[in-house]
């Protein structure tokens, strides 16, 4: 990122697939990441940290969906439901068995992965947009089940309050503490995804995405790998769900409904399909865009509207701007924010000697 290669000297596939182009890159990336993680909680106030925390949770969920949609090419409109599976699994473990977070978080992920496997079964026969609608069905069925099965939902209110995660007996309550807590899982998720997509499984995913029949012919068991993709993607979603309920202090299925699934879809597509950096950008973009447009409109809205109209018009204007920006990015840069970032970087890489 901050250094320039003097040429391409790779002589083996292993070198070509390495995470870092140069040995020194490993250290610069680690240094910057460490600096970022350490400085952010000191530099920002509580409100800014709460925004960052919302983004961090979204990053985990978006990475998961990207594995399924961006790398394997299977559209899913059920991310929100998988998050709720994770959230309720963890909530029940916490409330009934008093489990600590380092058990509940993987458990929530595993349970979501199991349900994801089930939902992935139709992908044996169904493809493309038909499959997308089948996952929409999963979303509705999971919502219904949680709402009606009281031993999952903990009563007619379908919400379970859970205490903050505690480390060595101390509950993590401050936004900065939660930030570090979330960051740990975000780093795990990023590193995990980076390595997954370079592995045999990841390459199989990409082959299926590019042309599933061709993939089958060269000997990839596409059904098995599609199921893997569903399970891994749901695992991430489940973890994101647990993290969100830890952050909010409650598991409630109404916070994981269809609009959430669509938001995640937007994150992955706007960020850039099949790009890890893209998922991160997308998660930040979709989470912060409504908030930033609100700041802007609060700032300049007074010029266009009378005060009484302001409260009523601004939220709708925000909706229009949000939708328009989605369309704008799709039209201008179909490969997403990740591509935009690459373009900017390669522009500066040769700068000032670009032609």
């Amino acid at each position, binding site marked *: 990122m901050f250094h320039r290669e003097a040429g391409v000297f790779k002589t083996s596939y292993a070198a070509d697939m390495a995470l870092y182009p140069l040995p020194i890159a490993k250290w610069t990336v680690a240094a910057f990441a460490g600096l970022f993680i350490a400085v952010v909680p000191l530099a920002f106030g509580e409100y800014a940290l709460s925004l960052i925390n919302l983004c961090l949770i979204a990053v985990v969920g978006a990475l998961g969906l990207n594995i399924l*949609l961006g790398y394997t090419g299977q*559209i899913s409109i059920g991310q929100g439901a998988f998050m709720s599976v994770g959230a309720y699994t963890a909530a029940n473990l916490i409330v009934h068995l008093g489990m600590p977070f380092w058990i509940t978080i993987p458990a929530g992920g595993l349970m979501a992965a199991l349900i994801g496997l089930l939902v992935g079964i*139709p992908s044996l*026969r*169904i*493809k*493309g*947009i*038909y499959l*997308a*609608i*089948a996952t*929409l*069905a999963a979303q*509705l*069925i999971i919502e*219904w089940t949680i*709402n*009606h099965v009281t031993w999952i939902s903990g009563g007619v209110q379908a919400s379970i309050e859970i205490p903050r995660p505690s480390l060595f007996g101390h509950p993590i309550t401050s936004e900065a503490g939660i930030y570090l807590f979330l960051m740990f899982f975000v780093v795990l998720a990023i590193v995990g995804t980076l390595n997954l997509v370079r592995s045999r499984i990841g390459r199989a995913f990409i082959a299926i995405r590019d*042309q599933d*029949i*061709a993939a089958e*012919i060269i000997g990839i068991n596409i059904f098995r790998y599609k199921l893997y993709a569903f399970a891994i993607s749901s695992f991430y979603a489940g973890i994101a769900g647990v993290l969100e309920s830890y952050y909010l202090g409650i598991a409630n299925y109404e916070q994981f409904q*269809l609009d959430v699934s*669509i938001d995640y*879809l*937007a994150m992955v*597509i*706007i960020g850039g*399909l099949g790009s890890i950096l893209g998922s991160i950008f997308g998660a930040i973009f979709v989470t912060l865009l409504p908030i930033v447009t609100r700041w802007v409109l609060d700032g300049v809205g007074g010029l266009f509207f009378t005060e009484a109209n302001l409260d*009523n*018009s601004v*939220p*709708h*204007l*925000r*909706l*229009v701007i*949000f*939708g*328009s*920006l*989605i*369309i704008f990015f*799709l*039209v201008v840069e*179909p490969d997403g924010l990740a591509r935009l970032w690459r373009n900017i970087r390669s522009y500066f890489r040769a700068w000032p000697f670009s032609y």
Partner: protein
Amino acid sequence: MPEFEWQFTLVLLTNGIMIGLMYALIAIGFVLIYKATDAINFAQGEFVMFAGFICAGAAALAGFPFWLSALLAIAGMIALGFGLERIVLRPLIGRPVIAVVMATIGLAQVLRGGAVLAFGAGTRAIEMPVGGTPLTFGPVMLSQVQLVGAGVSLVFLAAFSWFFLKSRVGVAMRAVADSQQVAMAMGINVRRYFALAWAMAGFVSALGGIVWGAMLGVDNQLAQVGLKVFPVVILGGLDSVLGAVVGGLIIGIVESLAAGYIDPFVGGGTKDFTPYVLMIAVLMVRPEGMFGRRRIERV
């Protein structure tokens, strides 16, 4: 526990048929776009809502009579269809399906915000010039608004079937959907037919918006009818107008019977997801829906 009664079942069945035809009315717009342009329109519900807003808004704000506001809604939606195709969809031609899907999701947000900005937020009624009292046939009662919706739906089924089978424009549209490149090589103006397809979808959505608006009242929640379209079109097959109507009928009947005979046993509303369960079952047997065309895939 409720017992089985023939008379009540008959009532539920007719009710399901009427509702199913109303669903079909919205689904046809969706199918038209897919058939001609291969695009999935996630903003179909918002199209319907926007049409309802125009119709109800014209009546409430300008005091137009029903027929004039209905005409205005139809004209407005056709113009919207043309405009959207030009600004949003045309730059996305040739892009992956998912990009188009996302663009229509963005479009849905714009229409939601825009409709309220333009017409205000409160619930409005659309006063159709038909009686409020239902027609009675023995135990069966049919609401007149629903009858109008069902009638329009059937008329469109016939009209579009003829259109795609016999008319020159319809055949050209099918050719475009089949393969854009071959169609272009044969001298068909692909862009024009894309625009036409969106305008036609706007037209059908306008009628859907008027009928559904008259039934539910017009506010931003009207867009939720769009969610009902998915099981209908997937069950019938995404590219079949007949499939949309048959799918609509099946979903309508299943929903009605589910409410009458499943809900009392499970203690909750199963109407929303039973259609989806049925849909998945059908897809496992026929992955392209009942009337969908099987695509031949090649490496």
